[in-house]
C-alpha cells in the first residue's frame, strides 16, 4: 500500500520528501501545526516519532525533543490519538517511528492493530533488527502495514538481501555512521553505497541522516526516491518557530 502510493507520487516528482517530527514537541498543538505546514508545503510522507526515554540512535536535537515531549506529559495513547487525527485529516501516508520497547510494552499485535485503526501506513523501529522481528513482521503483514527497515553503509550485500526480503514500503538508507543530526558529506562513496542499496531491493529508497538543505536534496535527485529531512526541521522550528517550517520545506524542492 505504502509502496504503491510512493510509486504513484514518484511519477510526478523526481524526488519525494519525507519529514520527521517528535509527537508532542514542543506541544501537541504545535505538532499539529507543523504537520499542517509540512503537508501544505508538499511533503510526500511523514514520520511521527513516539518519544522514548532512551532513544539511542538519535542525536542531541531529537533526543532533546523526546525528553521535552515526555516531560510535557506525552503518552503512547496521546500519540496514537494524534496519529489518527492527522492521518484522517491529511491525504499523505504517515509512519510511526519509535523504539522497540514502546511496541513491546504495548503488545506488538495490539500496537499494529492500533496503527491500522488509526490509518497509519507503516513503522520504523531503529533498534529492531530483522532477526528479532518475527512477531512484529507477522503483526504488520496481517494488517498490510509496512515494516520499514534500515540499510547502513557497513551493511554487507548479503545482509542487505536478507533485510530486503522482509522490508515493505520503502527502505531507509542511513547516509553515514553516527546519530541523527550531524552533518553529512555527500561523496562518491555515497554513490557506491546507494548502488549497493539499489541492487539489493526494488523498493523505493529513502536517504536520511544529515540531509538539511536544497543542495543536499538536489544532490539526491536521480540517486534515491526520497530525501528524509529529520533533525533540520526541528532545528528550523526551534530557531524560527512553527511559521518557519513551511517556507523551509518549500525551499527544499521548489523554485529557487
Amino acid at each position, binding site marked *: 500500500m505504502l509502496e504503491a502510493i510512493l510509486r504513484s507520487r514518484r511519477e510526478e516528482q523526481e524526488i519525494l520528501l519525507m519529514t520527521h517530527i517528535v509527537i508532542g514537541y514542543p506541544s501537541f498543538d504545535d505538532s499539529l501545526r507543523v504537520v499542517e505546514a509540512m503537508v501544505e508545503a508538499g511533503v510526500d510522507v511523514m514520520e511521527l516519532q513516539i518519544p*522514548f*526515554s*532512551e*532513544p*539511542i*540512535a538519535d*542525536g*542531541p536535537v531529537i*533526543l*532533546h525533543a523526546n*525528553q521535552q515531549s*515526555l516531560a510535557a506529559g506525552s*503518552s*503512547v495513547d496521546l500519540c496514537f490519538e494524534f496519529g489518527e487525527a492527522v492521518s484522517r485529516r491529511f491525504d499523505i501516508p504517515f509512519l510511526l517511528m519509535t*523504539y*522497540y*520497547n*514502546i511496541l*513491546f*510494552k*504495548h503488545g506488538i499485535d495490539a500496537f499494529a492493530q492500533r496503527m491500522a485503526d488509526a490509518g497509519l501506513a507503516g513503522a520504523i523501529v*531503529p*533498534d*529492531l*533488527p530483522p*532477526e*528479532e522481528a518475527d512477531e512484529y513482521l507477522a503483526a504488520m503483514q496481517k494488517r498490510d502495514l509496512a515494516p520499514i*527497515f*534500515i*540499510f*547502513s*553503509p*557497513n*551493511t*554487507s550485500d548479503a*545482509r542487505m538481501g536478507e*533485510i530486503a526480503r522482509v522490508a515493505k514500503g520503502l527502505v531507509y538508507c*542511513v547516509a553515514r*555512521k*553516527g*546519530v541523527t543530526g*550531524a552533518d553529512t558529506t555527500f561523496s562518491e562513496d555515497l554513490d557506491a553505497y546507494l548502488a549497493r542499496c539499489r541492487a539489493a531491493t526494488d523498493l523505493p529508497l529513502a536517504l536520511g541522516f544529515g540531509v538539511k538543505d536544497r543542495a543536499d536534496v538536489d544532490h539526491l535527485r536521480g540517486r534515491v526516491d526520497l530525501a528524509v529531512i529529520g533533525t533540520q526541521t526541528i532545528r528550523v522550528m526551534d530557531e524560527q518557530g512553527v511559521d518557519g517550517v513551511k517556507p523551509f520545506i518549500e525551499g527544499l524542492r521548489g523554485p529557487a
Partner: protein
Amino acid sequence: MRERGYYGDFGGSFIPEILVATFDELVDAFAEAKADPAFWREYETLMSSYSCRPTPLTYAENLTEHFGGGRIFIKREDLNHTGAHKANNVMGQGLIVKRMGKQRVIAETGAGQHGVAAATMAAKFGFDCTIYMGEVDVQRQRPNVFWMEQLGAEVVPVSSGTRILKDAINEAFRDWVTNMDTTHYVLGTACGPHPFPEMVTWFQSIIGSEARRQVLEQTGQLPARVYACVGGGSNAMGIFSGFLDDPVELVGVEAGGRGLETGEHASRLASDDASVGIAQGYKTYFLQDGDGQMKETHSIAAGLDYVGVSPILADLREAGRVRFAAATDEEVVEALRLTIRKEGLIPALESSHGFVQAFKEAPTLSRDDVIVINQSGRGDKDIFTVADAIGDPKWKQFIREKAEEYDA
C-alpha cells in the same frame, strides 16, 4: 547478525543496523579469544602482575563472633588495582581491543569505578579514552573524575535524561555508532547487547573460580550461601559463576534505596516494580512505566542505581537459581560502619548491600555453615557520601577549612 545471545527468555541483541557489523566483529573476536587457551593464560598473568590476583578470601572472625551464626568469609575484590572487581573486565576487554587492533576505548561509568578502571587500562595499553558519566554522578564521585582525568581520559558529563548511569550508556552508544572503526566500547557490566553479558561474565568468572578453590582450601567445604550486590550484575555473575553447579544458595542484593515501598529504589528483581522490556540493546527486567518509559531510580550507591539488570541474572531468577533481596540506604551505612569497626575492612557502598543481607541471615545459620560475601570494591572512594551519611562533624570542619584555603 552472527549470534543473538539469549539466556532463557532474556538478552538478545537489539541494536541499530549501523552497529551490526561492529557487533559481528566483536562476537568473532570474543569467540576466538575464548577458544584460545593462551588468551586466558595471558589474562591471568596480566591480572597477577598488574592487579592483585588471586585476591584473598578473608575469614571475618570478629563479624562471625558478633552474629554468632555461620562463619563469614569475604572475597577481597577491593584489593584489585583501582580498588574494585571492575579491573577484571576492563583488562580482559583491553586484551581483546589489542587483538582487534583498535586504538580508542570509550566507557560509561556510574560510581566512577569502571571509568577509573577503563582509564587505567587505556593508559597502560596506550589507547585514547573517553568516559561518559551522568552529571549527577560527576557531582557525587568527584575523586574518581579527578583520577580519570589524571589518567589521561576525557570525562564527558552527560546532561540528558536522568543524568545517571543509563544516560551515560546511551551517550557511549552514540559515540560508538560514529566511531566504531577505531573505537571499542568497554561496557562495564554484564548487560547490553550480546556478547557483552557473556563476555563480561567470562572475565569476572575469575572471582568465582578463585573463591571456590579458596573456600575449599580454607574450610574443606562449599559455602552454604554466597552474597553479592547487584547493580548491572557483573560482580555477582563473577562470583556466582564459580558455584552455579554446586549445592550453594546464591543471593543477589539490590539497592532498596529509601525502601521498596517508597518507589525510590533500584530493585529490578527483588521488587515487583520492574517488568520485562527491551532497552539499551537487550531484553531484561526494567524499572519502567506502563508505556515503557524508564523510571528514575535511587540508591545511596551510584554503582547500583541502574534501571536494567543482567539478562543472565534475570534468567537465573526465573529458574529459581538465584534469590534476590534488597538493602536500604540506611541498612547499608549501618553494615558498612559495623564492618569497618569489626574487621578493619572498608567495603564500597555498593558492596555493603551484600553485607546487609548476609548479616541478616548469618545468625540463622550454624557454625558448621560457611558463607561468602563478595566485597566487590573498596569504600574509600565513598568518603564524601559516607561522611555525610554518618554526619561526621570533624569531616565537615575539614571541608570548610579546605574551601576557605582555596578561596584565600
